[in-house]
């Protein structure tokens, strides 16, 4: 008997049809494609061998709140069941008019090269963050105008800390 599962995987959404097969394995249908799946727990912990279309790979699966913490390779997802009829979760948010550059690492700001109002091109240097004794130039991922500089020289920044907000636009050209 087939069962349909509507899942939210982080910001993405997927619908999976699940069928039990006589040999104890599962047949899952995703985007119209059938996959044979077997899931074997390794030991007593959260480690599983996922045998997907006859290829085995290790995954971590663990209850977390209402969902399942799922770790595949370097990626960690919280997978939750969506209620039937609930509005879909979009794969992408609408493009905003501005973009905030976050610190890719924990470190110290040693140089700020832009100020509010500056027009920047894609790949222009914005500031320098020192981590592990290396100076890392943080470059603009986009062309635009600097709206806000969130940090000053000597500021300690965590990974993900906002550094510079840029209003998108072609003023900086290419």
């Amino acid at each position: 008997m087939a069962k349909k599962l509507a899942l939210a995987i982080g910001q993405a959404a997927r619908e999976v049809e699940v069928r039990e097969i006589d040999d104890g394995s599962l047949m899952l249908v995703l985007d119209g494609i059938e996959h044979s799946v077997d899931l074997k727990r390794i030991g007593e912990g959260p480690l599983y061998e996922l045998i997907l279309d006859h290829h085995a790979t290790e995954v971590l699966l663990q209850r977390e709140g209402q969902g399942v913490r799922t770790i595949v390779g370097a990626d960690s997802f919280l997978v939750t069941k969506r209620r039937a009829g609930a509005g879909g979760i979009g794969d992408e948010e609408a493009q905003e008019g501005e973009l905030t550059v976050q610190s890719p690492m924990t470190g110290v700001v040693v140089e700020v090269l832009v100020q509010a109002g500056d027009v920047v091109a894609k790949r222009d240097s914005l500031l320098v963050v020192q981590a592990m004794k290396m100076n890392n130039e943080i470059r603009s991922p986009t062309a635009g105008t600097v709206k806000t500089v969130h940090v000053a020289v000597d500021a300690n920044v965590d990974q993900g800390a906002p550094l510079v907000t840029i209003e998108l636009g072609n003023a900086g050209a290419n």
Partner: protein
Amino acid sequence: MTDVSPPFRKVLVANRGEIALRVVRGCRDLGVESVAICSEADQAAPHVRYADESYTIGPAEASESYLAIEKILDVARRSQAEAVHPGYGFLAENAEFARACTDAGLVFIGPPPAAMEKMGSKLEARRTLQAAGVPLIPGTVEPVRDPSEAERVAREIGYPLLIKASAGGGGKGIREVNDAEELPRAIANAQQEARAAFGDDAIYVEKLLRPVRHIEVQLIADHQGQIVTLGERECSIQRRRQKLIEEAPAPTMTPELRMRMREAARKVAEACDYVNAGTVECLVYDDDQFAFLEMNTRLQVEHPVTEMVWRVDLVAEQLRVAAGQPLTFTEDDLTMRGWAIECRVAAEDPYQGFLPSTGTVHHYREPAGPGIRVDSGLYDGMIVGVHYDPLLAKIIARGLDREQARRRMLRALSEFRLLGLQTNVPFHIAMLQDPNFVAGAIDTDYVERTVHLTIDDRPDHTDIAALAAASFLQRNGASAGTPGRDQGGPAAAPDPWVQRSRGQQGLMAGWRRN
């Protein structure tokens, strides 16, 4: 048969990670007891587990633990260690630490402090070696204090050039300058980085030679005056002067150039009265020209490739030499055989310009099999943060020839399993299959001018996560915490690097590049 009497009774290993484990293992092979030190962040690390004794000496910050000289000497006293092995990094090239060990009645397993200082100051090294007749990279042998002085030198040797910290090393404190306009800012930046990293802001100017290969000569010398050079290592696969892949021998080496480089390395060792293991790094250009880059007065990260093809144990020899014993071999006893390649597995994201990655190691299994050696500090539950160097493990593949070593390395990389943390393994897989790498046509800028992976290459695991979680929910129902019903099944040869599914292509299609 070599002398089997242990060179020491007990050795303290003043390091962490894979190199601490390497030294602990080297000690045990000689019947020497080992003492591990660790920070509070490393108490479950393998070097602690496999040492005979361990002492927690402070918090995660290196300045409070692995760099805390007094705490380390205190552990040496309490454990009654006779000698200290510094590994690489941390205190390995700190002459003050070497002297403090000697003053405390301990043997420092490394070169004499005077040799360390002579080579540690890049400028003093340049002056010494100029006198010894070792070829140098064009540039200054005295410190450059201001932009106008640098500009004058630049007019002589021409752009592009490098601003280097005299106290630098391992790629730190270096700035590239392409024209006069960039010079003042580069000097200020280099001075600042040098002051922060080394407490010494003396800088100098060198011509930026390109294209060049980074090729280095391993040597080891004993107190009896014997210097043995152990051929070369090719280390041109590097990024921002951090090495990523090393091999021995160098693919383009000729017997004639090898002989000249080994001779120069011997001169370097003689010029600074060197004892113990060290490496003379050179730049090779115009096919058969080379120039001295720097000497590393310690065991290096990439020492295993030399051990593989020369069939020696460098750590064991370091211990013997430090104890005053002669080397167990002469240069004539040894021949190089086969090929070895090393890949440095680091906590860096190759899909995003090698940004440092952090996280928890939820599951780790290392490769093995014919011709594979893994030196690793990884363990399940390890939290990889920003306190230490991003190097996690080294995979070394040995073969009868380069192609066999390369294929074995690709196999080993495909077996490397790590859940929860992005590593640079996908970069290594791409590079090992790069036609220019396969042909040996590489130089030190190759990695930076060749984009191997971008964010678009990052495998999308969303579908696999959906299928895994759906299976988990199906097996465990709605009730939380119910163990899954175990299902047997054949385990095919796995490949963890999964690409986004395209059309009818299987979701588990392996990582392929060509």
